[in-house]
Each structure stands twice: as structure tokens, then as C-alpha cells.
């Protein structure tokens, strides 16, 4: 059986700008998170998978076939684009029904499938309302419905959770997980790690058009663990706290800027465990604490900096 996705030295150039750079990978069916900061090459890879772009060099196969202008691949793929584009004069039902019809369904089947799918994504209440009146969250659901309506084997979602409220986000995550549990494959792109983590434990980290790492959550967490974390602490006696922290084995360095301490550590958990007893012992009051390094960008910067 052909793999879900197979790329061999895949390269896509936009003039002198590199979208995807000699990327080679093989994905098996399942739910995969495509992670990377803005400009990493996620959207280019997705456009190559959905046949909107042709590789400059190398090859890409989806279900064993070249996706460029390939109706048989398109029939098996559902695509939810990142951009907020609609025929806004249509209702949600008309929009999804139209795209089901263009996918080859009869008018009756398309109407039934559109209603069923919109109900599934939680759009029952605004089924027959014009899209022009929708909030961002409602539009995201409608976009997801059009991607699901023809029952594809592979669902590709480009930043599907952007602009949704926390409740809507949770519901959409549940739907995407359900699709995976039905045995369908999903590739979901995001630049927010915890969002993707809630849907799958299989990641593909992409940066500068290259795959930096691919694997499950434990492998990614191991990479994160190796990154020196920078923890920001705002307290009433920074110099006093700094002198105590500098002596700890888990702390690599401390910097003071006014009332703020910037602590570098490779063992953030150990540091967090020690802090309560340290503050109790010294009488220092911590007003604010946070890590600047929890963002995905930091992981990528670290990986790229190490020449991976």
C-alpha cells in the first residue's frame, strides 16, 4: 500500500525565495501535526500536497500519485485553507452543497451531505444564514465542513483554529480527533504547539523549508528539554534572590534588570520546584514569573542554531 505522503528531495522556489528545500519524508496514515513558525514552509508544503503548486525539483506523491491537476487525488483529499475566502452571498448550506456538487455528488446527495456535515461541525443554527453575517468562528466551521463534505480519506487543515474562541477551539479539536478515530488521515498545520498537541502526538517540525524533526511528542519534548530555558522573575529583592539562584546547580546564569531577573536553566522543572522553599527562606516576594522560551519559535531557533 502506498504511503499517505511521500516527498523525495522536494524543492519549491518562488523566484529566489525558497518555499520548501530538498525535503524528503514519508508519512503513514494517521493524524499528523505540521508545526513551524510563520514563513517556515508549511503553507507551501500544503499547496504542493493539494496540487496547487508544482515542485521546482524532486517529487511528491499523495496516495502514490502526483497531486498536480489530479482529480483522483483531489477526490480523496479535503482541504481547509487558512485564508478567509468565501462566496459571501451564499448561505453556509449553499456554500458546502455547491462544493459537494463540484466534488461530483448529485444535487440531492450534495444537499444531504452538506446539512449532515454542517450539523457535525456545530453549524446547525446558522445553516441557512448568509456567510456575510458570520463571525470568524462560524466561518472556520463552515470551511471545515466544506473540507469534510465529500468524506475524504485525507483531511488537510491549514491553521484551522485561528480566530476561534476557546469553546469553539475545543469543539473543533474534538471534531478533528473524531475524524482521526474514524480511520481517516489528517494533516493539521499550526504555529501553536499546544493546539496541535491536543489533537495528535505525531509531529512534523518544519523550518526554513526543511523538516527539522519528525516523530511523536516524547521526541519533541526531549528536544525542548535540551534547550536552555530563560525564566523571567519579577520580585521585590532581585539582588538577594539572584545571589541564591546563582549557587544552584540547575542554573546556568542570572541577569538583573531593575526588579526583573532573567534566569537561564536547562532544568526548569528543578528550578520551579526549588523556588517556593527559596522564597520562604529568604523572604523574597515574587510578583511575576514566566518563561519566554516556551514558544515554538524558540525551539526552532535552537534547532537551527545547532545546525540540525
Amino acid at each position, binding site marked *: 500500500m502506498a504511503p499517505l505522503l511521500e516527498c523525495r528531495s522536494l524543492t519549491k522556489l518562488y523566484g529566489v525565495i525558497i518555499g520548501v528545500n530538498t525535503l524528503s519524508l514519508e508519512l503513514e496514515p494517521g493524524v499528523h501535526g505540521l508545526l513551524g513558525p510563520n514563513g517556515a514552509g508549511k*503553507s507551501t508544503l500544503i499547496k504542493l500536497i493539494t496540487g*496547487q503548486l508544482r515542485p521546482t525539483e524532486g517529487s511528491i506523491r499523495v496516495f502514490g500519485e502526483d497531486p498536480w*491537476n489530479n482529480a483522483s487525488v483531489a477526490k480523496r483529499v479535503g482541504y481547509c485553507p487558512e*485564508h478567509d475566502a468565501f462566496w459571501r*452571498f451564499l448561505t453556509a448550506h449553499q456554500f458546502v452543497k455547491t462544493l459537494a456538487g463540484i466534488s461530483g455528488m448529485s444535487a440531492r446527495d450534495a444537499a444531504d451531505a452538506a446539512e449532515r456535515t454542517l450539523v457535525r461541525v456545530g453549524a446547525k443554527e446558522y445553516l441557512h444564514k448568509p456567510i456575510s453575517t458570520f463571525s470568524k468562528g462560524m466561518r472556520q466551521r463552515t470551511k471545515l465542513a466544506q473540507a469534510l463534505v465529500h468524506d475524504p480519506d485525507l483531511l488537510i487543515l491549514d491553521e484551522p483554529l485561528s480566530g476561534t474562541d476557546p469553546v469553539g477551539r475545543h469543539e473543533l479539536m474534538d471534531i478533528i480527533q473524531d475524524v482521526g478515530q474514524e480511520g481517516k488521515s489528517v494533516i493539521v498545520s499550526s504555529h501553536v504547539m499546544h493546539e496541535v498537541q491536543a489533537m495528535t502526538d505525531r509531529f512534523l517540525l518544519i523550518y526554513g523549508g526543511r523538516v527539522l524533526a519528525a516523530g511523536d511528542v516524547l521526541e519533541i519534548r526531549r528536544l525542548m528539554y535540551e534547550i536552555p530555558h530563560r525564566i523571567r522573575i519579577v520580585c521585590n529583592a532581585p539582588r538577594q534572590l539572584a545571589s541564591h539562584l546563582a549557587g544552584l546547580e540547575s542554573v546556568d546564569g542570572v541577569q538583573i534588570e531593575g526588579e526583573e531577573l532573567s534566569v537561564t536553566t536547562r532544568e526548569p522543572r528543578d528550578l520551579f520546584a526549588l523556588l517556593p522553599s527559596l522564597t520562604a527562606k529568604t523572604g523574597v516576594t515574587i510578583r511575576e514569573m514566566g518563561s519566554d522560551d516556551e514558544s515554538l519559535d524558540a525551539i526552532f531557533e535552537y534547532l537551527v542554531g545547532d545546525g540540525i
Partner: protein
Amino acid sequence: MRALFVLALQQILGGKKIWILGIFLSLPILLLLLILAASGFDFPEDESVDVEGLSMSTFLYVMYPQSLCILASLLYGASLLAGEIEDKTLTYLFTRAMPRWKVLLGKYLATAASLSVLTVLSMTVAFLICGLPVGWHVWLALAVTTVGACFAFTSVFCLLGLFFPRRALPVGLMYAVVVEGLLSVVPAVVNEFTVSYYLRSIGWHLADLPIPEEAVEELEREMLPLLAGSDLTGAAIALGVITVSTLLVSGIVIHRREWPLTEGV
């Protein structure tokens, strides 16, 4: 392709541009009413040779196949796919299990057919207001050239829209004025590459206007080779070739070209 056809119809009837089309379609009728009001509603009394009837026929030809059809086709033809590119909705059409040429053909047929029906309806109203100038065969000539104009110009403007998606309207307008307006009446081979030249030929032959013999001779000797020099069959074939070939080039363009609709990498 039915869904696509319905979508194209909804885009014409449900979009904001329908108001502009409505103004275009009612303009000749209003103009005609104004002219008739100014002349005291002095309708031509019979269908035989009369200057007034011939003037009205010429007026309707200039208003419909020569002007309104160009503007209506420009309005919808230039944005046939260029509008989808601008609105980024082309992604939905080009990532479904429908070949791109079918997307083009479905949208083109729906647009050209809808414009034909609407313009012929408007022309018929105007024709009836004129009091059936010359006769029904003139209506037939006007209807055929109106439909031919809608199909040919929609195809031409669609192609222009693909090459200049962000400036489809100004480029199309320039084409309409320079090529179809000026070059089509230039007494050189260049006028034979315009849609208007063949439309005029078809209109002239089908209308069979009852013009006095001496006037016909003078017309055919001096004006006709310039304005409508092709015979009916030749003109119909040439118009078909222009329409199909421009549509074919559009098909090749959309088949071969990539459509990265978002700026992001």
C-alpha cells in the same frame, strides 16, 4: 458541472454587480423613451422602408451588440476567473475533483448564457418600444448578434482577466475602446481580427434591411468592406474561431499555471 453552473448563476444574480448590469440593461430603454418622448412618440407606422425604422434598427445595434454586450461581458467575463483569484475562492474550485478546464467551461457557459438571455430580453423590450422597426427579421438579426457578442466577448475578457487578474477591468476597457472600438473600423487587415467586425457582418446579412437600391450600391462599394466585409458563413466561422480559441488559451493557461493565492510561504 451543474453545481458550478448554478454557482455562476448565483454569482451573477446574487452579486453586487447585478445593480450595475441592471443599469446597463435599462439604459438603452430609458434612452429610447427619452428620444421618443422628444419626438412626441411618433412611432413608425409600418414595417416597410422608412428612415425612422432604419435609424431605430441602427440605434439598437449600436446600443446592444456594439456597446451593452461589450460592457456586460467585460463586467462578468473579466472577473470570470480573475474574480475568483482576487477573492481567493479559486482554491475551492481547483482543489476539488473537477478538472480545471471543466471549471472554466462551466463558469463560461453559465455567464455567457445568462448575459445573452438578459441582454436579449432588454433588447426585445427596446425593440417593442420602437414599434417593431422594419420587422421581426431585424429582431432576429439583433438577437443573434447579441448572443454572439455575449459569448465572444465573455471569452475574450476571460482570457484578458487571466493575464491581468488585478487590472482586469481597466485592461478590458482599454481593449474594448482601442481594439473593438477603433481598430475594428480601421480600413486594414487589422479589423479582421476583431469581434465587432464579424458581428457587424452577421448583423448586416441577417437584417437584410430594406434600403433603396442606389443606397445599397454605394454602401457596398464604400462602407461595407470596411464595416462588415465578411459573408455570413465566413463571419459566423470567424466569430466561432475567436470565441473557441480564446477559451482554449484560457483553458491552457489555467491548466499549466500555478495559483499560489496567498502570500505566505
